[in-house]
């Protein structure tokens, strides 16, 4: 009997719930931290980004109209699916680390499994926020007049996320965007395999197609198009370097996008609600009373 040939995974984009290759047909090589070849990833073009925005916009009505409870359940479902594929994520994470033993003395395998645990916990944490953010971020406002005046948060719309590379970072940027009802287009450049494997999880998690779209490619090539896109309502610059972030901020001013600037993100720290509120708008209602 002949030796079995390995069946290797083709890493593709995730747009509108489907896994297309890049419209441009391009790809780029993903290497490990040591420089070894790991895989070829699709290199998205600006037209893929445009298509992803169209898909995200199409998904927005249904997703933002779903009950917060339902969105929370779906996020929780994603966590369940992640749980079932922990080993795959852990293996991919291990492939990207340079040292076999970290500063904290843990070996790579332990660190990888800790990272996946933290990502799943983070997702569950955000899932819980789905029906609570309105209570925390909304308010009944005292006013002088015969009105009941209240404010409630509403999703901004389509958000572009220049993603960080780690699984925990990805979950920590994507979950707060979508849990409140936004849809998003995520762009990952370095070590994008976790992002694509995450897409495979999203595709089987009851998440409607188009709510999360994931592109792999060069940030510098795609980000300015998303930043200046008039049908994108917010942009999270987390994965951008300083120069690109500055350029994107200028472009984003064209339609007054909500911009989240890159900070010193420690993904293991308590995230707080800042990432959720960054892509919320506030609707205030004046309801007449006593007439």
């Amino acid at each position, binding site marked *: 009997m002949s030796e079995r040939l390995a069946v290797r995974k083709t890493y593709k984009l995730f747009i509108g719930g489907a896994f297309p290759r890049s419209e441009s047909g391009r790809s780029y090589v993903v290497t490990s931290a040591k420089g070894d070849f790991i895989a070829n990833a699709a290199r998205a073009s600006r037209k893929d980004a445009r298509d992803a*925005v169209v898909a995200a916009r199409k998904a927005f009505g249904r997703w933002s109209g779903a009950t917060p409870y339902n969105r929370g359940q779906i996020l929780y479902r994603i966590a369940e699916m992640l749980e079932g594929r922990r080993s795959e994520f852990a293996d991919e994470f291990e492939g990207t680390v340079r040292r076999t033993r970290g500063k904290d003395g843990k070996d790579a395998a332990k660190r990888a499994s800790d990272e996946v645990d933290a990502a799943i916990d983070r997702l569950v944490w955000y899932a819980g926020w789905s029906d609570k953010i309105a209570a925390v971020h909304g308010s009944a406002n005292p006013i002088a007049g015969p009105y009941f005046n209240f404010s409630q948060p509403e999703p901004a719309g389509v958000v572009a996320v220049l993603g960080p590379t780690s699984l925990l970072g990805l979950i920590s940027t994507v979950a707060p965007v979508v849990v409140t009802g936004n849809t998003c287009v995520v762009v990952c450049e370095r070590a994008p395999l976790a992002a694509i494997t995450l897409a495979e999880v999203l595709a089987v998690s009851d998440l409607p197609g188009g709510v999360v779209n994931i592109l792999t490619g060069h940030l510098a090539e795609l980000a300015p198009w998303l930043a200046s896109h008039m049908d994108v309502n917010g942009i999270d610059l987390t994965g951008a370097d300083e120069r690109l972030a500055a350029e994107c901020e200028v472009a984003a001013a064209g339609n007054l996008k909500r911009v989240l600037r890159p900070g010193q993100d420690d993904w293991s720290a308590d995230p707080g609600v800042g990432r959720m509120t960054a892509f919320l708008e506030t609707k205030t209602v004046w309801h007449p009373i006593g007439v």
Partner: protein
Amino acid sequence: MRAFLHGLPGVDQVGADQRAAMLATRSIKTTAKRQAIDLAVSMVDLTTLEGADTPGKVRALCVKARHPDVAQPDVPRVAAVCVYPDLVAEAVTALRGSGVKVASVATAFPSGRATLDVKVADTVHAVAEGADEIDMVIDRGAFLSGRYGKVHDEIVAVKAACGDAHLKVILETGELATYDNVRRASWLSMLAGADFIKTSTGKVSPASTLPVTLIMLEAVRDFAAATGRKVGVKSAGGIRTAKDAIKYLVLVNETAGPDWLDPGLYRLGASSLLNDLLMQRQKMATGHYAGPDYFTLD
């Protein structure tokens, strides 16, 4: 009539599909794309054919027909506004002096299931109200059961009722079942005096498709070669993006020839298409992708 129509060469279905698909892959970029978009805008029959149409909606549409986008004053105006007969007067008033034509559907649109008297009266009414163009539907039931004479005579009668107004004959290709029937219906309509032949009402799916338009364009080309009279073609229904519109323009140029790249001989019946054309136009002007929030809802 029957002998002539059945004597027309049969359509090679696979060939027609492949030729349309092949022409749809033409890459139209930069300057050519800009020209194509402006040409497509000038060929649009801006259409509203809903039961819920109001005079206010028609007036709003007419304003858009005159000035498709206030932010881009150099956009050409559209070719015509297409409404139901009872709203023709409203459109005529709103478009006076603009050069935009008023088209009206008539003859018991979209089914065409009415007696000839009613169809003629419908047409006479629309023309009296001031319609420049009449979009009539053929009796598909009669056509499919082989009563070509009846279809022919109805078109002749409606054409007579039109007077100076242009007559567009809707074949409703989605109900004609075969490409051979599309070719026969095209010839039948042209022989009966149609000024335009139009693919669909937009109420039946599939509406306009590239292969069907290809066959109709071949028919008008051959008809012009045989008789010297140029008949126009209108593709209507299901054309929603600028990309689709440009595919149709390529088809027109390659099949009927550049003479037909003119609002007088080719039209695109659409409503949501115009916004996409304007968005593409703005993208080319500003270099940024445009968003639908910045264009009118209609």
